[in-house]
């Protein structure tokens, strides 16, 4: 019987089978940030278990609120920083080198095909773009991961999502995943790994694949996952060139993880994107999705471009296509938060930061900030934000506010128009 990629990764990491339907996996990388890790550290210290299973396989970043906004967030940073030092965790990213975890860690080459990855953050599914099994977990799972390098899961069921057709010029990975969530609902993939496959995914950059996998959790999925291929090998090349003679050889080796043709899927979905239009959320759930055209004219107070979903270089380039030589509407506050310092400096070199600033955007340092309503752009009651983030829950970016999730191109168009509008008008 054939296996899915998730089943292959599970089999390669099996540590224990505590019941017929549960497995305990060895974890390759445990990722940490300053919001969910300090309380895990405090608990481990209190229980006299202040140890780490392997400092080289733990990576940590201060990203959610940075620079610290108050004493409490400063203390969270302090706890993480002290812990990283005392356990000799070398891959620790603080002010000056920090950025949004799910953009930063891939950029550093920490995620490889076939890896198991956990983090105390639901959007850890992003890393599945590399052909890894990557799952968001709670604090207790994180504690056990830090201490023992293991994590428990139910046996993986896989939902295969095959994406075919040709992406129209104004339609991106963000629009595709919003449309998929609309089709299957916020719990359409609960307890499943969403495997993204098909010619459209094959042609996508790693950035786009990360956008796709990033929002798998919004459909309830345990992880998103893509087949690692030449695109993956090219992205990872600086980190793997000692292990392979050529990029092609690496790509060939990655094939061992690919799902077998006779693998068994719990669910299948086919989506042809040729006729897809730019998508947007209209309510407080990520499956409440419409065509942007159906929301035409909806005024926005703020446009936010950033986050682990869409704060990468290709996202900034798309937005800049529309923002170049234009000014944002006087009624709009535009905020750009490049997801990592690497992306920030690349955007500077390409003149993109200038384009944003000339258009009237405020450019912040790399951080999660406004995405979860903690800093750098929290909304007032009744305000509306067009946002490239991934979650539109009621109150997420500020009590009583409304978030419309959309692509960077559509967000840029909204910033110029002052309201939701078809980005095609500006291209």
């Amino acid at each position: 019987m054939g296996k899915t990629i998730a089943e292959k990764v599970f089999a390669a990491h099996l540590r224990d089978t505590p019941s017929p339907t549960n497995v305990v996996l060895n974890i390759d990388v445990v990722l940490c940030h300053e919001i969910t890790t300090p309380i895990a550290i405090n608990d481990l210290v209190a229980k006299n278990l202040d140890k780490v299973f392997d400092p080289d396989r733990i990576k940590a970043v201060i990203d959610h609120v940075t620079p610290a906004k108050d004493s409490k967030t400063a203390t969270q940073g302090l706890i993480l920083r002290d812990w990283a030092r005392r356990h000799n965790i070398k891959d620790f990213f603080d002010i000056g080198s920090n950025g949004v975890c799910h953009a930063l860690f891939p950029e550093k080459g920490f995620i490889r095909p076939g890896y198991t990855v956990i983090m105390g953050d639901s959007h850890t599914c992003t890393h599945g773009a590399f052909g890894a099994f990557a799952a968001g977990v709670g604090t207790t799972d994180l504690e056990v991961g830090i201490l023992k390098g293991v994590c428990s899961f139910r046996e993986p069921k896989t939902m295969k999502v095959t994406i075919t057709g040709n992406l129209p010029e104004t339609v991106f990975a963000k629009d595709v995943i919003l449309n998929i969530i609309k089709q299957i609902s916020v719990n359409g993939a609960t307890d499943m790994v969403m495997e993204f496959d098909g010619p459209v995914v094959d042609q996508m950059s790693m950035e786009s694949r990360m956008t796709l996998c990033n929002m798998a959790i919004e459909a309830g999925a345990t992880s998103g996952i893509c087949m690692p291929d030449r695109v993956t090998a090219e992205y990872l090349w600086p980190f793997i060139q000692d292990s392979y003679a050529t990029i092609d050889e690496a790509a060939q080796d990655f094939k061992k993880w690919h799902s077998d043709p006779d693998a068994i899927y719990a669910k299948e979905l086919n989506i042809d994107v040729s006729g897809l239009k730019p998508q947007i959320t209209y309510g407080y759930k990520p499956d409440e999705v419409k065509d942007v055209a159906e929301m035409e004219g909806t005024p926005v107070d703020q446009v936010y471009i950033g986050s682990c979903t869409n704060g990468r270089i290709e996202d900034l380039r798309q937005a800049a296509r529309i923002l170049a030589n234009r000014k944002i509407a006087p009624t709009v506050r535009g905020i750009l938060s490049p997801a990592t310092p690497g992306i920030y400096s690349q955007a500077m070199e390409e003149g993109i930061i200038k384009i944003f600033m000339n258009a009237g955007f405020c450019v912040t340092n790399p951080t999660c900030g406004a995405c979860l309503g903690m800093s750098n752009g929290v909304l007032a009651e009744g305000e509306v934000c067009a946002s490239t983030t991934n979650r539109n829950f009621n109150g997420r970016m500020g009590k009583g506010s409304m978030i419309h999730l959309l692509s960077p191109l559509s967000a840029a168009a909204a910033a110029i128009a002052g309201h939701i509008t078809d980005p095609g008008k500006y291209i």
Partner: protein
Amino acid sequence: MRNFTGQVLFLDRNDINTDEIIPAKYLTENTKDALKSHILEDLHLGGFDAGKDIAGKKIIVTKSNFGCGSSREHAVWVFEVNDINVVIAESFARIFRQNMFNCGMLAIELPREDIDAIFSLGQDTVVSVDLGKNLITAENKQGSSLSLTFSLNEFDRELVLAGGWLAYADKKY
């Protein structure tokens, strides 16, 4: 093991998310107790008043996809520090469900008919969960009662008996 008996708090909606259970702004707290008064603070549910409706409640009965969204275990701890150790729902989001068992608490899934049956008992219903017999009994003030069987994943049961995943894993791995 924890106490799995008490008065029911009915939350009549699907897809209640972690931001509604405990808003992100409280994630800067470094103790569980600091979360206590913020339980369900941002819950959007007609007529629900977190200030009044939670007092004395020990068991939550709700609809589908409970706990969707963030991985924050704070959503479980805020129940724990309010002495709520059981959530009974039609279905759960994976991470929330795992967090419950990881803390030695119960996340029990029941078919919709059973959930509806408990709902129909109305306010002032007391539920008790017998883990040994896989039995839920519910009784309201008027004396109407029902018994429902449930099934639990064997490993999840072990976690509850062990007092959570950290205690279990520290011994075994």
